């Protein structure tokens, strides 16, 4: 199994088409090719963080600045960002458009990802964070655009879950 070159390209094109000019991220395997494109694009600002919760603060700063910004992280990284999501974004009404590599679901071969994958949807539901799964490269561009639009209109975190079907060949 390898990370999908074509679909990483499609997702990055979707991010660009949604008008996003800034990304905060913590690299993980599924996001690697995507982040490489972001780094190579002179019109995209990529801010790599040491821990995902920082990205919530950076996203708030970008929102105040009026810069279209998204967050890229793994589901386990989102767990480490939860207080920021709740006590900054949700508390103050700050939108977060999160693209989350969701590890540990159907077909997961790695034991270390499984527990996080099993609880991801329950955590999102408990926090009233709207989410959708991205499985189809034909649809992911539209889903990114819609996630962005909804985050801005609801002044809320939203999550687009990038699945194995999309991220691996």
């Amino acid at each position, binding site marked *: 199994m390898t990370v999908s070159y074509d679909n990483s390209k499609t997702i990055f094109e979707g991010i660009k088409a949604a008008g996003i000019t800034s990304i905060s991220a913590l690299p993980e395997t599924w996001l690697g090719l995507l982040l490489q494109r972001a780094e190579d694009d002179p019109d995209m600002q990529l801010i790599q963080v040491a821990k995902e919760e920082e990205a919530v603060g950076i996203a*708030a700063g*970008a929102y*105040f*600045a009026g*810069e279209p910004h998204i967050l890229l992280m793994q589901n386990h990284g989102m767990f480490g960002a939860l*207080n920021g999501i709740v006590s900054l974004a949700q508390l103050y009404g700050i939108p977060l458009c999160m693209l989350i590599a969701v590890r540990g679901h159907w077909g997961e071969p790695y034991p270390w990802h499984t527990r996080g994958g099993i609880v991801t949807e329950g955590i999102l539901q408990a926090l009233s964070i709207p989410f959708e799964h991205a499985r189809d490269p034909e649809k992911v561009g539209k889903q990114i655009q819609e996630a962005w639009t909804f985050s801005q209109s609801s002044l809320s975190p939203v999550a687009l879950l990038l699945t194995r079907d999309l991220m691996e060949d």
Partner: protein
Amino acid sequence: MERAQCIAMLYPELEDKLVVTIMGASAQELYDLGHRENFFYLQHAMGLASSIGLGLALHLPEEQVIVLDGDGSVLMNLGGLATLARYRPKNLLHIIFDNGSLLSTGGFDSHTTAGITDLAAIARGAGIEHVAAVDSPMDFGEAAVEALERDDLSVIVAKVKAVGPDNYGMDLALPENAFRFKRCVQERKAAR
């Protein structure tokens, strides 16, 4: 030295800056001097004030951003210092008031009490070049003036007493602060 003294010294300089404070005493002491629309008070999410400052500074290179942080909050986001060092926004001044105490949450000693943990050394070790450690109002004032004139990322670690205001309260709902701060930032941007 008391934090309130330092904030009062800074206050006249803050009018044309964007200011992010942490929760509790720092926020209250700034608010009590007179709220301005360019102040954002992060009343929770400890650790993220510097990350908000980084997001502002990187996307608004024409603004000067000042973060009023504390030892307890910085200890919750030490990685954030490394991220600041990596992106090195020229227009960010990160002031850490080190009172050695988790004052706002009961006054328990933080790891910096009695100089066990040296936040200035951590900031330098994270890769931040301009780090000043001060413990008198005169040194604080000098360090602040130098930092504001420097045109580079600066950190000031100011040792202060573990005291805060007698009364807490703001006539400013949290989302209201966010909405008005954003509007203020956007108006300043449009006016340029």
